[in-house]
C-alpha cells in the first residue's frame, strides 16, 4: 500500500482563486503533496493545463469541481465530465449526487458548518439528506490549523454521529486553498491508500476515497489495521461477523513529509475509539520515528473503530491525526 499525500480542495483563477494551476501545482509539490484535486467553483475549465502542470510540477492532478450552490457546497472529485450544479434545490441534492456517480465521480460535503448567507451563501450545508450512504465523504477538516476550529468540530461530530447510525462514509481534509500565501498554521494532509506503488491514476485515488482508505493529519501518518488469524483488514474494510478474535495494530509514522512539518514536544496520546466509545488510550510522549501498537479488541456491539492521535500543538491539546474507520459486521 502506498499512501498518497493529497490536497483535495483547491481553487485557481478559473474561479475565485488567486493562483494559476501551475502556481498551485508548484506550491503543493513544495509542501510534499503527491496529488491535488482541482475543485474550482462550478467549472472544470482549469483542467486544460492538467498534463503540462503534472509534468512540470511533478504532482498528480485529480479532476473535480466544487458545486457552489445556494444551499450547500459539495466537492466532487474524479468525474469524467461536468454535471450541472444549477438544478440543485433543497430537496433534490441526491439527484446531483447520482449524476456525479454516473460520471465516475465522488461527492462530499464541503465545510458543512461554515457560516452561510449572507456571509457566504451556501457555505453551510442546508440540503435535505435522505440517505447518508449516498455521499462518499464529509470534509471534516477545512482550512489551516483545522482541528481547533469550531466549524470543523461540528463536522467531525456529524461524521461520528453518522458512523454511529451505521453509515459507512469517509472523512477528509481540504484547505479550500485559494492563493499561494505563506502560513505558519499547520496544514492538513489527506492520505489516500493506493495499491499500485509506482504510478498514480484517477481510478486508484477515487477507489481509495470511495472505500475509505483514508487517513488525515497535520503531521504523522497514522494507519490502523485489524488482524485476525486469517486476514488483515485495512482502513475502510469490513470485518465479517464470522471472524474470530481480532487485534488492532496501529502505526504512527512521523517521518512522512520529512522537514515540512514540526510538532515540538507533542506529548502524543493514541486513542482507539469506536461506536462503543474509547477502547484504548496510550500515552506515547514525543516521538519522531515510527511507532507501532497492538491491542486486543472486544467485538461485542462494535460497528466501527478508528485511531485518533492527539497531542499538543501551539500550546493547545487537540487532535493531530485520525484514520477513517475499520468497520465490523
Amino acid at each position: 500500500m502506498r499512501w498518497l499525500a493529497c490536497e483535495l480542495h483547491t481553487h485557481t483563477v478559473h474561479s475565485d482563486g488567486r493562483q494559476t494551476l501551475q502556481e498551485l501545482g508548484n506550491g503543493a509539490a513544495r509542501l510534499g503533496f503527491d496529488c491535488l484535486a482541482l475543485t474550482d467553483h462550478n467549472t472544470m475549465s482549469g483542467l486544460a493545463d492538467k498534463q503540462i502542470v503534472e509534468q512540470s510540477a511533478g504532482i498528480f492532478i485529480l479532476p473535480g469541481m466544487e458545486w457552489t450552490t445556494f444551499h450547500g457546497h459539495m466537492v466532487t472529485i474524479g468525474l469524467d465530465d461536468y454535471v450541472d450544479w444549477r438544478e440543485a434545490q433543497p430537496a433534490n441534492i441526491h439527484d446531483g449526487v447520482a449524476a456525479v456517480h454516473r460520471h465516475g465521480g465522488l461527492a462530499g460535503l464541503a465545510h458543512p458548518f461554515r457560516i452561510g448567507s449572507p456571509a457566504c451563501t451556501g457555505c453551510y450545508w442546508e440540503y435535505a439528506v435522505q440517505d447518508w450512504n449516498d455521499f462518499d465523504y464529509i470534509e471534516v477538516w477545512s482550512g489551516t490549523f483545522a482541528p481547533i476550529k469550531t466549524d470543523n468540530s461540528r463536522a467531525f461530530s456529524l461524521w461520528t454521529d453518522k458512523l454511529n447510525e451505521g453509515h459507512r462514509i469517509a472523512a477528509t481534509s481540504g484547505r479550500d486553498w485559494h492563493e499561494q500565501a505563506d502560513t505558519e498554521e499547520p496544514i492538513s494532509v489527506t492520505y489516500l491508500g493506493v495499491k499500485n506503488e509506482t504510478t498514480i491514476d484517477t481510478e486508484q485515488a477515487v477507489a481509495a476515497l470511495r472505500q475509505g482508505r483514508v487517513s488525515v493529519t497535520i503531521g504523522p501518518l497514522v494507519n490502523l489495521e485489524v488482524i485476525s488469524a486469517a486476514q488483515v483488514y485495512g482502513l475502510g474494510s469490513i470485518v465479517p461477523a464470522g471472524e474470530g478474535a481480532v487485534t488492532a495494530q496501529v502505526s504512527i509514522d512521523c517521518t512522512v513529509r520529512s522537514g515540512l512539518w514540526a510538532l515540538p514536544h507533542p506529548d502524543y496520546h493514541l486513542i482507539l475509539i469506536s461506536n462503543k466509545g474509547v477502547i484504548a488510550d496510550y500515552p506515547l510522549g514525543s516521538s519522531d520515528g515510527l511507532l507501532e501498537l497492538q491491542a486486543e479488541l472486544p467485538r461485542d456491539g462494535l460497528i466501527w473503530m478508528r485511531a485518533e492521535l492527539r497531542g499538543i500543538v501551539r500550546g493547545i491539546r487537540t487532535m493531530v491525526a485520525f484514520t477513517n474507520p475499520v468497520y465490523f459486521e
Partner: protein
Amino acid sequence: MFIDIKSAVNPNHSQSHIRYSFPLDRPVKALYLYFEYEPKLLDDNAQGRKLLEQSLERYVLPEQKELALSGIDRYLPLSNLITISVDDPNEYRGACHRHDSIQQLFLSESAASPGLLPGEIITGTWTITLSLHSIVTGSCTYHLKAWAEEEEAI
C-alpha cells in the same frame, strides 16, 4: 448585439437564477460578454451586522453564539454576489465564479476567459445564466451584454 439588458434585483431575488437566451443563426469567430452589477458592497455596516446576527441564529450553536457575535465584523462589509455561466446549444461552457462586479469575457474556438471553455461557437440557442448568490443591498442594478465577433469575410 444579442443581449443588452439593464435590470435591477433586490434581496428577495437572492438564491435564484436569471436566464437570458438568444439565437445564434450564423457561425461567428468569438462571443463576447460584458457583465456589471452595482453596488458591490453594503456600505451600511449597522444593517450588515443586523443581517449577520439573524443568520447566526440559523448557523451557530447557542453555546457558540457569543463567540461568533464577537467576531462578526470580519464578515463586513457584506457584499452582493452574482456569478455568470454560459451554455451553448448543446453543452455547458463554464462559469466565472468570482467576486469582481465587472467582468469582460469571451469564448472562441481556441481560447476563452478563465472559467469558460474554448470551443466552436456553434449556431443555435445560447443561454447566459446569472446566479444571484446573495443580494444584500436594497437594490442592485446590472447590465449584461452579449455580442459576436463576425467571421472574416472570405
